[in-house]
């Protein structure tokens, strides 16, 4: 009798490793941090393959590791949102109907990540900029600028990965 937990645990870890590798292979880098890459792909694969809980856990690990490998700390709330939280929400793609409609899963997960980065940007400016500066639009559009292309590429790749079947179905 195989221990399912160890199997899922190791698989999550290896996929997080793949995500870290892909996050370094930037297709395009934005000037203030954030870049267009396929880093979200392994987390979505994990969520579709092993369910939302594994996806959320994998996302949290990815965020923590990015922080450990040299993240940016400018405010406690910003760190929590930009690192674990922003990647955790990608795991939502593994829940319910999102798991069956993969493109919808990618879209919803990425949109949640965009929201979290936006809130983080607002929290940052709330702490550093004088009151009255309008920052929601700025933060949203800045983050959308690299996240939307990333999400589109990831979505296309996810749809095409589904065809061989091996990737999303554990043996």
């Amino acid at each position, binding site marked *: 009798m*195989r*221990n399912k937990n*160890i*199997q899922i*645990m*190791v*698989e*999550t*870890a*290896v*996929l*997080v*490793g*793949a995500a*870290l*590798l892909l996050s*370094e*292979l930037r*297709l395009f880098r934005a*000037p*203030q*941090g954030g870049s267009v890459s*396929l880093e979200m*792909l*392994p987390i979505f*694969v994990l969520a579709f393959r092993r369910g939302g809980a594994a996806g959320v856990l994998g996302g949290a*690990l990815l965020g*923590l*590791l990015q922080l*450990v*490998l*040299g*993240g*940016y*700390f*400018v405010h*406690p709330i910003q760190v929590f949102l930009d690192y674990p939280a922003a990647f955790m929400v990608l795991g939502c793609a593994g829940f319910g109907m999102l798991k069956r409609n993969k493109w919808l899963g990618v879209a919803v997960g990425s949109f949640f990540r965009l929201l979290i980065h936006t809130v983080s940007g607002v929290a940052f*400016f709330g702490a*550093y*900029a*004088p009151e*009255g*500066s309008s920052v929601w639009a700025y933060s949203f559009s800045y983050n959308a600028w690299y996240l939307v*292309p990333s999400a*589109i*590429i990831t979505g*296309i*790749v996810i749809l*095409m*990965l589904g065809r*061989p079947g*091996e*990737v999303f179905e*554990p043996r």
Partner: protein
Amino acid sequence: MRFKNLTIGQHIPGDSVIHRLDPRTKILGTTMLIVLLFSVNGFIGYGLAALAIAAVIQASELPWRYVLRGLRPLMVILILTVSLNLFMTEGEPLLRIWFLTVTKEGLLRGLMMGARLVLLIAGTSMLTLTTSPIQLTDGIETLLNPARKIGVPAHELAMMMTIALRFIPTLLEETEKIMKAQMARGADFQSGNLMQRAKNLIPLLVPLFVNAFRRADDLAIAMEARGYRGGEGRTKFRELRFGRIDAAAITIVIAFTVVVGFFF
């Protein structure tokens, strides 16, 4: 996509006092620094914090440019923060440029916010520059241990982080191998528009994922065969050791934080 000189993480190995400190000491020290930087409110406080960070950088024997390089990606945010404060804080006007007014309060606030940002980034990056990711993971595991009582799987999280880090070089090697194999068959990873490129990545990604799952399965079987049962009673090859130098460092850091945080 280029693989040459790919470095993941910014750790720079060394043998300085700072490098040799226990990771837990460094994590606690960094936390104290963050608390300090958010509690001081004046230039003397920031000046003293800057001196302390400079002393740590000097003691770490790292070249200063490594630390300063970390600030570069945040240059735009830094300039934006300082100038927003400079021009948009109301108060006693100092200087008028066209329709923008620099106020005395704005100048002070801008400089202070800029100083806090720079010190936060320089200070926290010292942690990741002088501590290897594996050591940090070990440190996080022991610091999270008390949280096990409320159901945080500290050991499992640390184990997964270690496995993830361990697999990066393996996966990188595999990616290169698959890329070469597919290029020999005529695959093209360099040209085309975004859509085309994404499509071209499929012959790379499918074998990469399938291989990764196979490796993960092998590792899981190996762990089970060796009786892996999670964190309970597990021993380590390299134990973290909290020595006298750590006790001294912690004492200095706490004393400094309390004094500077309280008085300035």
